[in-house]
Structure formats: C-alpha cells, structure tokens
C-alpha cells in the first residue's frame, strides 16, 4: 500500500484514537494511571477558572492562563484536552509536510520523515496522556512554516505566542532574524544594512504579540501569573531527580548542608550561549529548520531540569534534520545513536525506580553517573548533527 498524505494523517489520527481508548481502559482498571498528572492540573485549573476563580488556584499550575481557557470545554467533556493535544500533533505533522514541499523534498521522502513524528508511539502517548507538548509542537512547526511561506508577520505573531506559552521558543528568534537575509534593507548601507524589512516585521510582530498577551494576562491575573508562569521556571531549583546533569549538584547545593555552589546559577550561560547565540550565528543561514532542531536539542541537553516531555520539543524538528543526516547515510551511526540514547535513559530509569519505589539511595553514584552518561550521549549526537549541517 502506497503511503500518501491522506493515509499518513489518517493513520496518525487512528493511532491516537486507539491510544486514547486504551488510556481510558488503563485509567479505570490498573493501579498506575495512563493519564498524566499534568492533565489533572490543567483540567482542575480550567474548572477553577470556569467557577470564577483563577487557574493558579490549582497548586502546581505553572502555565499561561490561555491554556486553562483553551481547555474550558473539559469541564463538560473531560477528554477535550486530549483531543486538542492529539489534534495539535496532527496539525504539526501536516504543516511539516507543507514545509518539506516548500523545501523541495520529494513527496515519498517527506512522508517517510514526517512519520517519525506522526507515527511515533512516544509522541502519540504523550499527547493522549494529556501533556500539552503536542500543542506546542504545532506552534513551533506553524511559525517555521510561516517563515517558509514568507508570511513574516504571521510567523512573528506565532513566535510571540509560543514564547508566551513556554518561554524556550525565544531561542528561535535569533535564528529566524539571522536567516531572514533576502529582503531589502531599510537602513541604508554598512552595518545597518542588516536591518531589513523582514527582520523589522518579524521583530515587531513577535514583540508586540508577546507583550500584548503577557500584558493582558498580567492585567487579568496579576502577580500570581508572573510568579507561576515565568518566575518559577527561571528560579527553579527542582532538585527532585530528573535527567539533567545538574540534578544531583542542585540537590546538594540547594540544601543547608553546604554553601550554595556558584555553578548552578551559571548554568544558563552555556545553555543560552550555545542554543541562543552560537548555533544560530553559525548555522541559521545555512538551514533554518535544521538549526532550530540542534538549538532545541542543545537547550534541552544543557537545561537544569530535563524530563521526557522535553524531548518532544526537539523530536518535532527531527524530521527536518534527518533527510541528509550522517546518521542515515551511515546506518551504524544512526543505529548506535538511537541505541545509546535509549540505553542511557533506561539506565537512569532503572536507578530512578530503585529510588522511588524501593527506597534505595541511588543518588550517588547511580543517578549522578546516569545523568552524566545521558548528557554525554546527547552531546555526541548533537555534535554529529551540528557538523552535518
């Protein structure tokens, strides 16, 4: 059976429908719930908002109120949010195919690479469990698509919206600005030639969208909005164990047993420099989509906190990197890459299980070593990808 766009999209949709119903079954009958705890946080926040309160009435709601608004139908139809997120996946996939077309990739190859996202069970699981990453993926692909379609103002607006939603898409701003080479300058010659029509349009539209949305939310919800949606993420010292290489250092350093280490607060430096300045400057003019992929990968790898949902942020851009990737040309490179990436996670998960469910203190060396190994595997893969572009 030949893979066509329609068939791919329908298969992706059916897959998500199947996962959704499986999830309903597991929620009812098994001890461990299928639905993610985050989904209950979102739906509770929507419920409180519908009752005239604020989404921040729900403890651990750390997102923009717009998400709670989008999920207001969940007060009547609990599954609505999952539908929205799964739809986000499909829209991301469809826009991905449009981008491939604009980049001139043959339809067959485009469908193949888009399936890495659309038919990926990990991606389908995350959306049907109720994590909002699918929605975010749709936003990122949409803003990239708008750039390729030369809809600069739309792209800026979508970027502003994405940054309001999740902050990290701000790393795409330098890449897009750097890559928008082709329109006439508006400020004459010399250095100022860099300031061209497209760049100005993009900068203004993203800035205005972001400030309007953020300003509106602040006006409605005040300080709790700033605190939970933004400040929490910036000052976050989440020492609960996760994949990040800074994890154990943060745990010990944040405790009263030692003087606070200066290093965690410097963690932003390599992360933002590499993902926000270095990679865009080096690579954005060569290939914007691939640059965005490695930027995101670098951002997640160097982040102070890393959970498996964060992988979605770069997996949505992976299909753009793959077509001419060294990891596909050299099969063994690709296979080893995938195996090591998976094994490193499995190692961490095993140590994490010992801690969480058996009570063994695997913090050191177990989890510590596993996070450094995972970091190293990611750096290796990232290095291959960067050299490739």
């Amino acid at each position, binding site marked *: 059976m030949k893979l066509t766009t329609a068939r791919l999209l329908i298969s992706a949709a059916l897959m998500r429908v199947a996962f959704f119903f499986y999830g309903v079954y597991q929620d009812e009958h098994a001890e461990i719930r299928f639905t993610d705890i985050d989904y209950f946080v979102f739906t509770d926040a929507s419920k409180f908002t519908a009752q005239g309160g604020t989404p921040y009435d729900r403890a651990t709601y750390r997102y923009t109120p717009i998400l709670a608004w989008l999920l207001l139908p969940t007060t009547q139809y609990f599954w609505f949010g999952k539908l929205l997120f799964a739809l986000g996946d499909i829209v991301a996939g469809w826009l991905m195919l449009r981008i491939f077309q604009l980049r001139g990739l043959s339809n067959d190859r485009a469908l193949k690479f888009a399936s890495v996202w659309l038919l990926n069970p990990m991606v389908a699981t995350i959306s049907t469990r109720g994590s909002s990453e699918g929605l975010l993926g749709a936003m990122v692909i949409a803003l990239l698509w708008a750039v*390729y379609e030369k809809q600069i103002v739309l792209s800026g607006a979508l970027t502003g919206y994405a940054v309001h939603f999740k902050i990290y898409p701000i790393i795409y701003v330098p890449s897009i600005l750097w890559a928008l080479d082709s329109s006439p300058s508006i400020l004459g010659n010399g250095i100022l030639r860099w300031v061209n029509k497209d760049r100005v349009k993009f900068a203004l539209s993203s800035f205005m969208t972001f400030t309007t949305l953020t300003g509106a939310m602040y006006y409605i919800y005040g300080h709790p909005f700033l605190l939970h949606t933004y400040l929490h993420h910036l000052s976050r010292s989440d020492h609960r164990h996760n994949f990040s290489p800074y994890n154990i250092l943060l745990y010990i350093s944040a405790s009263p047993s030692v003087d606070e280490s200066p290093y965690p607060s410097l963690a932003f430096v390599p992360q933002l420099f590499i993902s926000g300045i270095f990679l865009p400057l080096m690579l954005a003019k060569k290939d914007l989509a691939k640059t965005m992929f490695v930027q995101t990968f670098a951002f997640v790898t160097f982040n102070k906190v890393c959970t498996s949902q964060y992988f979605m942020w770069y997996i949505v851009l992976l299909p753009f990197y793959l077509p001419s990737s060294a990891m596909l040309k050299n099969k063994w490179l690709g296979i080893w890459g995938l195996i090591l990436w998976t094994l490193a996670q499995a190692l961490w998960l095993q140590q994490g299980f010992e801690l969480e469910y058996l009570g*063994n203190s695997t913090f050191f060396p177990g989890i510590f070593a596993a996070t450094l190994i995972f970091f190293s595997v990611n750096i290796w893969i990232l290095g291959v990808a960067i050299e490739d572009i």
Partner: protein
Amino acid sequence: MASIRQRHTFIVHSQFRDTADTLNLSKDKLTLNDVPGTRQDRLIVTTDHLKERDILQAVDNIRIEIVSRENFAHIAPFNRQLAWGTHINVVPTEIFNWNGFCKWIQSSVNSEIACIGQQSFIEVPYGYYLHSPYTDSSQLLSYIENNYSDAKPDIVSEVEEASTANYISLSLNKNSTDNKTAGRLIAEAYWYYGRWTKTVKAGGPDHRVEVGLLGKIADDPQGELTYGGILAVIGENEQFVPTLFDFSPRHRSVYQPAVYYPDFRQPYGLHPKHLTTVLGDISPPRKKITAIDVGGEDGEIDVSEATTSCGLYGYYVLPNFIFVDKYQVSDLADAQAGGIKRVVGIWGETDLEIPVWMVEKWGSTMLLELIPPEQPLLAGGMPHLDIEIPMHSRYEVPRWNTTRVKHDVPWPTLFWACNGSAEPDMATSPFDSNGLGHEYLFDPGTMFYYLHPNQTISNPVNKTYLVTNLNIPVVPLEAYKYVQPWTVIVILLGCMWIFYKAFLGFRRDGGIRKASGVKPDKDKLEKKGPKTE
C-alpha cells in the same frame, strides 16, 4: 470560689480497702501509703498568680499538652487518646506577638521546639496548632513551679512527681462556659498506674485541696458511667465522705474489641503507602435511642425519637518530612477507595514539591471519615478495614556518612464520633476533657469512642512506642566532592565538543560568507525559492 483549687483523684480497684495503714486522714493532712491505682492531679488557679502576665493574657484559649513517648494505658474515665509529643494549640487575640510567643514556648515549654513565628504553626479550624516530637516536660514543670510557688509553697514536690506522669497539660480558656474554670489556668497530670505514697496537706482559706479515691460502679455503654468512693477536702473534712455520682463521659474507649495497627507497605521508596489495618468488632458504639418525655402541660407522655449517628474517623499527625497530596486523597474519597469515606480536612504544609529544609511549618494534620465495614451476619467472620493512604516523603537534608534518614511517624488516632439530638450535657462531668484539639473539629456535644492501638503497654523491660518507622533515602554529603567538580567538567567538555564540531562543519563549508550564498541545499535535488531553505 477559692483562687487555688487542687484535686488529686485516684482510680482504685474495687478490691481496695481503706485501712489505717493505707489511708490516714487528719485535721490538716492526708497520708497515703502504697495505694495502687490510676492517678490524676489537677491544679486550677486564677491568673493573678502568674508572674509573667503578658503571653497568657494575650490568648483567648490555649492548651499545651505533653504526651509521653512510651505507650501507656488510658484508664477510664481518662480515655482520651492523643499522639505522643508536645502539642501546642492556641486561639490568639487580635493583636498577637507570635515572635514573643515562640520565645515563651522555647523558654517555658521546651527549648528544643522549633518555633520562629506564626509560620511555624498550622492553621486549623479552631485556631493554630504546633506539634513537636519532644516529650521532655521538665521545662514546663519548672514554669508551673516558678509561677505557683508563692501561692502554693509545696508545689516543688508536686512538680517532681509530675515528671513521671504519662500526660501533662496546661490550659487556659477565657471563653469557657464552665464558670469554675473560665479564665483560669489549669494544670493537669495523669499517671496510668502507680503505688502512691504521699502526704497531701491542707491548703489555706483561699486554697481548696480535695482528694478522691474512686472506682467504677456501673458502666452503660449507651449512657452514663457511675463512679463511687470516698472524698475528702483536706482541712475541712476530718472523715472521708462517701460519694456516688453519674456522668456522661465525652471520651471512652470502644467497648467492643476493635484494634488497629498502622504500617507502611513494604517495599517503599519516596511514595510510601500508609496502611492501617483495623480488626475486630468494628460496629458503631451507639445505637438509635428513644427518649421518652413524661409530663407535658397536660401530663401526657411524649415519645420522641432521638437519633444518634456515629462516624468512624482517623486523625493523622504528619511531621513535615512526610505529606499527603490533597488532590490524590480527595480522588480516593470520591471513589470511596482506600477505606476513605470523605476527607474532613487536611491542614498545614501540603506543598507537593519543596524539600524538607524549605518547609516552615512543622507538618500537617488530616482528619478522614472512614468506611466501617459491613458487619458479617454469621459469627466467626472477622471483619476488617484496611485504610490505605498514599503519602510522599520530602527530600531530606544530605548528611555525612549515611544514605538513609530514620524518622518516626506517630500512629493515627482512630475513633468513633457520635452525636445527635439527645446528647447529654457532658460538661457536668468532673473528668471532662474538652479543649483545643481534635474535639474542636467536631460539633460540641460529640462523644468519642477510641479504638485500641494494637501495641502492648510499655514497661521498663520492654519499651513500646506508638511509632511507625520511615526511612527516607538521601544523598550522602561525601558525594559532593565528586559531584561538584565532575558536573562542571562534563558540562565544559560538552561545550568544547560542540564548539569543535561546529568548527569542523564551518571549515568544511568554507566559513559563513560562503554559506549565505546561493548554494544547492543538501537535501533536495534541485534548489528552489528563498534562501531560508
């Protein structure tokens, strides 16, 4: 009314015989010689005896209780159960100096109690509450000694004896409806058993000293208790006065054999499941009762049906290294799972994410209404109730030389709470214990029937405690000397690798300038359109 009232109550066995050897009452003193029994001492004074007037004048209601760690028996009528440790319950007045209050607690109750200000207390429906695991009563007893010594010179020997008590409390309630105690400071001590040899001297004109030796005469599980024995007011009575009286107790132990035992499901990690198994006759202690009222205006007999309803409750005291997720517990209650019928309340520190060193409050408390099991119709069946509460431990402070922090979690208190339209006035009981504490989480007039903790009474040879052990895994501080440098080294090496690889790609493509020119895209067969591809 005398400004000092001192009462010693001994609950003695029905075989006890008052002989000249064991008891000797004279005009100005009573001597007891090796009298075996349960003892409760009570001292009620007006507040003008207090040296330090400020703190206790600034509260509307306060109750400080110290319950000994070793498991002791609660002999009737002193059946009220409470977790071990120090409990401080307070209803402050409008303008209250919390800082000063904490300083007072540390100087007058126990200097080890962690108290900074209002943030150390948890807000409960009736006021504020602080629980501490420390059980040393010597400071509190010194405080009582220092403040009462000019009023009652032989307080010193009383205080010495009280250091062996199983339970000590100090309370003051300005708004009490009992005018014998309203606005007065009440000190109480309880020993579940002793062989008492002591001399009780007469007081003075303003100081009434009363001694009673009592035994239970009758016990109606659905109604009143009857106690009888001998009383004497030292200095007034030269002979013992026989006494017999009925009263309705607020607190009782369940009459049926119903026991419970809590533990954590093994193995557990960071999310221990607290399981309390209740065995025995778990049926409500009070049935529906009918009240007959004779003599309306025309002498008619008015039969009204009174109803009493009873609920089974579990009251949990959780220090801050362990907590419950209120959303999770509410979900269980919605599904009537885990033995939980409804969540009456969860008070205190319930943050789901912060580590233990960032918690300001001492912990949290939780009151749950439980689902009593259906009683089996056939004898020989053993009903039991499993109460399973998912809990979570907080990240602990890393320390030297250990990967595990050992903690003690108090046993929950399980009881039936019964009330209804025809409840008698329990305040007339001379043994009523109604102050700040779990009683105030219920309607006034509620009667409590405590289930029996399944643990032997502690004795010097075999000490037992109502604690459940909890181990929290922690990172050992020795790891820090590796973690800090190695994290930095690996991150730096990672950065360098990235720069190196980018440089390789850069060099291969001949630099940025070349890259921005029109060149064939590596992934497509023919170029097309804008440069951003």
